[in-house]
């Protein structure tokens, strides 16, 4: 069984004011088939964790490690990490002008699998996944994320998750900006992917509402670049009722903008 392991991870970014420490020792073990929710206030470092695992060049790993089945992910290029079985659904997916969705999906699938998918089954699979996510067929011919609404971008991310079949997926605030109907559709897509492939999930969210549709096995509360508390799904319910105040107030940080 595959395992994604994050150990004592320290990460900084270069800012105009100098080097800024964001992650201050993160430990996390995600096994295939498990769902981990990472919850925390704005600016606590959730996206930083996601991007660092995926290999965004902006984030500098000061110390610690990230491994997938014992293999050093941090030593791999961004694309090699994806081919090793990692997927990141972005909080803000970028537009790529002139690159059609079909072309993009096929190129990605070919890269991940190492061989071109057979045309007939692939086309069918894409069409079916799009239908499940209530994406109009016309999206295939549109350019990647160009002019997509916030909700459409998120569905497009989940479409890729379903088609690329990673071992581990990190969903960075996939729920934000979605209305209830879209939230359900997206959650269904994630659950379907899990059922079909048994992937491990790292579900980053600020709110508990997506957890009504995707039940986590573990909840980690992220505060100021660290895991401040861990528990089962009941911890999410507690956060729902109490908010993050109890983690933030005593130490007086961080403040929200």
């Amino acid at each position, binding site marked *: 069984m595959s395992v994604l392991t994050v150990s004592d991870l320290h990460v900084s970014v270069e800012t105009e004011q100098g080097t800024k420490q964001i992650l201050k020792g993160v430990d996390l073990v995600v096994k295939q088939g498990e769902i981990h929710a990472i919850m925390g206030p704005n600016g606590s470092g959730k996206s930083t964790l996601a991007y660092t695992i*995926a290999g965004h*060049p902006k984030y500098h790993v000061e110390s610690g490690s990230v491994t997938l089945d014992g293999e050093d992910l941090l030593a791999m290029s*961004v*694309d090699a990490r994806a081919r090793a079985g990692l997927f990141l659904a972005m909080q803000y997916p*970028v537009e790529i002008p*002139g690159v059609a969705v079909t072309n*993009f999906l096929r*190129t*990605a699938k070919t*890269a991940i699998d190492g061989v071109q998918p057979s045309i007939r089954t692939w086309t069918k699979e894409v069409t079916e996944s799009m239908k499940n996510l209530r994406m109009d067929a016309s999206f295939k011919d549109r350019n990647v994320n160009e002019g997509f609404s916030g909700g459409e971008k998120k569905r497009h991310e989940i479409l890729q998750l379903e088609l690329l079949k990673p071992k581990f997926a990190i969903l960075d605030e996939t729920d934000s900006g979605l209305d209830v109907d879209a939230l359900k559709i997206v959650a269904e897509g994630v659950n379907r992917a899990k059922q079909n492939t048994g992937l491990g999930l790292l579900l980053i969210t600020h709110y508990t509402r997506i957890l009504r549709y995707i039940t986590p096995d573990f909840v980690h509360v992220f505060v100021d670049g660290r895991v401040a508390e861990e528990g089962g799904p009941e911890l999410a319910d507690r956060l729902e009722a109490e908010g993050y105040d109890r983690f933030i107030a005593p130490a007086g940080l961080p403040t929200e903008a």
Partner: protein
Amino acid sequence: MASPVTLTTSSSSPKKADAQDHSRLGSKQHSDGGWGLVPIQVRSARFASYDVRDFEPVSGQEAEWKHTPVARLQPLLTDPLDGDIEALTLVATGGPATIEWIDRSDARIATAGTPEERASANAWSSFESALSIRIDSETPTEITVHRSGLGDVPRAAHTVIHAAHHSVGTVVLQNSGKAMLSENVEIVLDEGAHLTVVTVQEWDDDATHLASHFATVGRDARLKHVVVSLGGSVVRVNPSVHLVSEGGDVELFGVYFADTGQHLEQQVFVDHDAPNTRSRVSYKGALQGLGAHTVWVGDVLIRPTASGTDSYEQNRNLLLTDGARADSIPNLEIETGDIAGAGHASASGRFDDEQLFYLQARGIREDEARRLVVRGFLSEIVQKIGSPELESRLQSAIEAELVGGSESTLEGQA
């Protein structure tokens, strides 16, 4: 990202160019008269003549030459040019059109424009016969003019494309092989005509090509003009469009890919000279390698006669490596307060790292991700051509540029 526009207020309407009027042949360009020494601010005030002898020698400081490596094209500026190009031109047509070679004195010549610089005038003074293409048919027709065996001899060419009222057609000028060429292309659209003109430069690495395209767009007529420059040492294509009648519409597209040492230039001029005319200018380029240089100048003039004008121009450049340089100079002169819209945008930059990250995060290797982004960036323009066969051929030509420069294209092998 619209930057401020140059707003020129003029007390009198500039003299309207009369293409049939050769009277200016008698006038001379004066180096003390606001040419060269005093920069001309307004595009409408440029000197124009059909005769090369009316032009001062080119110093390289002039507004229309200052970005161009004039030393590399001396023969086209100074020497007499070989004006007999008939045997070297191959015309293929896929539909009804009248194609013939016409004499210098033919009335169809000088119907769309007058040279505004010396190389253009030199070609005008030198050509022996002109290729005349006339489209009358309302069913779409496509004509391709192939030029591939021009060699090193400094040459002049002249082409007149006439789209009769309500005709629909496409003319492709397809260039490859060696060349030292200066040419003028006149484009006339009668009332309601829909014409697409595509000029494709896939010259050999050492070729030099200067082209001036003059278009005049009649009432409710629509011109789509596309410049594709991929191969050649120095290639400069300057399209100039006169919207002389109400409801005239022009779309000017360009796509270029400059490799090491290549100079690719385009000076676009749109002259709004009648009410309710519309123009869209969109040029995109990629640059790769040391000394790759591109120039885009976009002049849009909205005359007092052009109330209700709707105009937008943009240029975007993608710098793929260090040592490349993209000049991008939009310029808007607005002489009437009554316009529907006028704007411009210009941006030159490196790869968007976020785009690369997104693609790589989907398993796509860096070099392939870069290719996807560049191809996507440029194909936005190619997709506008509207001729599927030509589009896919050009996509592969761009592909070839991306994977390593000097690979010959299908056309080159044919």
